[in-house]
């Protein structure tokens, strides 16, 4: 029960060893284009016109990505030198990332010779950071240093029967080993919230789960729509899922059976080990970056089958610094996109493996990837933009 990881000065352990450059923009992009081993992000939202709560959510995402154990060191550039919102100022982001114990450098075009100057200096700094990071060797550590994040998508009934149960086995195993496991998608626990609340470690946590669902359900009702015109999404219905409740009850199997330690906001870091529910949105462009910011060092997308016909290449979702795995239990999906998929558990439906045997195989796959084997999506440069989960109106 161990993997090979990069031990950080704060005691966390990385499964990767990147230099991160944030936020997005031409400075970050130029440095990443020039210097190997670097990562940045892509979003369409810089916080302009956003409320204080949403700006803080953006800051939490950026700081969390910087503090992720897969990041050796960080460059923060001042996107709006001297005039940005206080929550998003480079010095603030840098200070909070550095509080986690890693090296952080700030680029400020106002002091570094303008945008061109900041790019040149950033390339120089990033090269040394990458070089220094490469001196670190992987060491054998226990599974308690794994932090997983999962979502299920394009769900069909294979998700609930054979896909999510294998993930649930993995989650139970990692939590039993002292690790951390995150799941979420608040809309998609509607109908299953009582089953989850019964697993809360305390009445307060149970209350927080039910409150998150109530708020989301009230929002849904306020639209005046039959939720089935929104979620389950058309691909779910095409895959045999008939109601939101059915989707939810299948979805929660991915969270295993261990007690729920708490309810986290998007991109919020857990304070202890164990299983956490994250009050987030299901969108794959949103959720994985949030998990990585919360500290996930491996993330999984458990894929159904509806709506993926003809998709023989699955490009992965933006998880920035966390290796991203595709898993499916749908034989048609697997046949269509075999070389994109890291793990297949349709064997449970075919009757050749039990959910536990499939889960054990998934565990070995995750440990392998945590130890350095590239996930299928990591073999591609392509990264989609992050759709940050922001809930308040823009002005």
């Amino acid at each position, binding site marked *: 029960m161990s993997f090979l990881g990069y031990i950080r000065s704060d005691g966390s352990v990385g499964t990767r060893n990147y230099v991160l450059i944030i936020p997005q923009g031409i400075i970050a992009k130029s440095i990443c284009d020039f210097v190997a081993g670097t990562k940045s992000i892509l979003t369409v939202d810089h916080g302009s016109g956003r409320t204080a709560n949403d700006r803080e959510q953006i800051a939490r995402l950026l700081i969390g990505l910087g503090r992720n154990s897969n990041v050796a060191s960080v460059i923060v550039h001042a996107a709006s030198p001297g005039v940005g919102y206080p929550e998003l100022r480079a010095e603030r982001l840098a200070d909070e990332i550095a509080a986690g114990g890693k090296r952080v450098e700030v680029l400020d075009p106002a002091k570094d010779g303008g945008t061109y100057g900041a790019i040149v200096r950033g390339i120089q700094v990033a090269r040394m950071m990458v070089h220094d990071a490469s001196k670190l060797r992987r060491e054998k550590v226990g599974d308690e240093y794994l932090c997983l994040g999962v979502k299920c998508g394009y769900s069909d*009934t294979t998700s609930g*029967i054979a896909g999510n149960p294998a993930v649930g086995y993995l989650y139970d195993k990692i939590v039993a080993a002292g690790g951390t496991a995150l799941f979420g998608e608040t809309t998609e626990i509607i*109908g299953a919230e009582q089953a989850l609340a019964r697993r809360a470690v305390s009445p307060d946590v149970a209350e927080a789960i039910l409150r998150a669902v109530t708020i989301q359900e009230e929002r849904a*009702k306020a639209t*005046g*729509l*039959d939720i089935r015109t929104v979620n389950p999404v058309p691909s779910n219905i095409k895959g045999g899922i*008939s109601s939101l409740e059915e989707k939810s009850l299948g979805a929660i199997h991915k969270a295993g059976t261990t007690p729920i330690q708490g309810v986290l906001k998007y991109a919020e870091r857990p304070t202890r080990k164990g299983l956490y529910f994250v009050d987030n949105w299901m969108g794959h462009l949103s959720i994985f970056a949030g998990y990585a910011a919360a500290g996930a060092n491996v993330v999984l997308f458990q894929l159904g089958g509806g709506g993926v016909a003809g998709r023989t290449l699955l490009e992965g979702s933006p998880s920035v610094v966390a290796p991203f795995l595709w898993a499916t239990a749908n034989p048609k999906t697997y046949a269509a996109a075999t070389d994109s998929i890291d793990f297949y558990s349709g064997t449970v439906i075919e009757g050749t493996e039990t959910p536990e045997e499939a889960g054990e195989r998934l565990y070995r796959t995750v440990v392998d990837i945590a130890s350095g084997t590239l996930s299928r999506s990591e073999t591609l440069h392509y990264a989609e933009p992050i759709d940050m989960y922001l809930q308040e109106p823009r002005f």
Partner: protein
Amino acid sequence: MSARRALIMHPSDNVATAVEEIHAGEEVAVPVRGSVLTLHAAEPIPFGFKIALQDIPRGGIIRKYGETIGKASLAISKGALVHVHNLEGTRARGDLAKGGKP
């Protein structure tokens, strides 16, 4: 020909999920607590879709995973396909909250 397979997730479920394509009239075998329940499909049940294990009256609760996944919007006969045409969710229904008809 051997029976087609469908699975329940909990002993109290009144629908089972087809884990292979089931054609109209075919025999369906559902493992339940160590024995096997058999019934005939009244219509095609595609892979991943649900078959009713008993007659369910209009308004009756439909159970999967041992929990409520919705109620019958029409009377459903044993062996029939159960999906959005005869099952409706009861949660987050903005249309009902706005006074729409169930």
